[in-house]
């Protein structure tokens, strides 16, 4: 399954400073969800300091997850079933002023 992963607000610093990552997930018996995507990302994209991105089975506090620019809370959160060509954006919250 093809997805576009995007990172903003500094989250990209954990992913080689690259803001956009087109990825192809391998075929799977069970449907891909954000929960399983996070595991895949930890194993395949996130090489250093995973605790700055993932906490337990979710993202760490202070990171918003957007599916096609919509807050994952308006969808099924971790259980959202990914669809072909979805855009998943991870935004780290800024605090400077």
């Amino acid at each position, binding site marked *: 399954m093809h997805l576009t992963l995007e990172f903003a607000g500094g989250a990209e610093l954990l992913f080689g400073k690259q*803001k956009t990552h087109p990825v192809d997930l391998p075929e799977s018996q069970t449907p891909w969800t954000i929960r399983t995507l996070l595991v895949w990302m930890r194993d395949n994209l996130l090489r250093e300091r995973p605790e700055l991105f993932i906490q337990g089975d979710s993202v760490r506090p*202070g990171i918003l997850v957007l599916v096609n620019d919509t807050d994952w809370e*308006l969808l099924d959160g971790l259980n959202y079933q990914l669809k072909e060509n979805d855009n998943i954006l991870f935004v*780290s*919250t800024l605090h400077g*002023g």
Partner: protein
Amino acid sequence: MTNIVRNHSLSNAEVQRYSRQLILSDFGVHAQERLKDSSALIIGCGGLGSPAALYLASSGLGRLGLVDHDEVDMSNLHRQIIHRESTVGKTKVESAQLTCSQINSSLKIDTYNLLLTSENILDIVKHYDVILDCTDNVITRYLINDACVLSHKPLISASVIRFEGQLTVWNYLEKNGPCYRCLYPQAPPAETVSTCSDVGVLGPVCGTLGSLQALEAIKLLTKIGDVLCNRMLLVDGLSMSFRTIKLRHRQPTCAVCGTNPSIVDRPAPPPAGQCTNDQPCRKNVL
């Protein structure tokens, strides 16, 4: 001036001064009157607070409150355009007040040279119609959010770092908008929090976001346009890209604005205690 209706309370000097706003369709004398009768509180007179204060002072707003506990430093001047070389060492609120009053001597300005705490914030926030969060650290952002929810005030919040900015309006009751805690029930771990002092910020990024805060404040106070509520604007100055994301509604489980809130009398610290390194750890003051 022609075509200006006469049933209003503006003086001829005001009609002249604000004529380029008055003639705006969707604005007009009655929006200008509402602005004159309104007040706004700017918390943080730094990178965001500078343009926000300058544009609100210019606009014909009636009363402006300015909060900061810091003094002007030379390293502020690359982005904090309300301050001057001659005000380095003065308090930021005094420096900002000076510039605002030079632009608009009719504006009433209240200054608060203090560190906001859960003890003093409610007493300040209650005197204003809208609050602008122009601060630079996580703890104060939770504090301001809680105070705004408890006081039923809309909160126009912006933040910047490096080449990026974020903007939204929290606690906009007319549209069941979420508060900061609805989105961020838990504070981020301290080691993930960067500040402008740590990693820098480019001045015009502050200018863009701070101007947009003033714009949202004027729209909100005059009741024109669509307030940026249930949405967040993400700005990336390096690629010059702008993106609006759709946010969740008010959360029934929220600790401060939910149906069974645990924060009821005064603001509370965020659940996961942490401090920023931009200023002395503030855990103790909350």
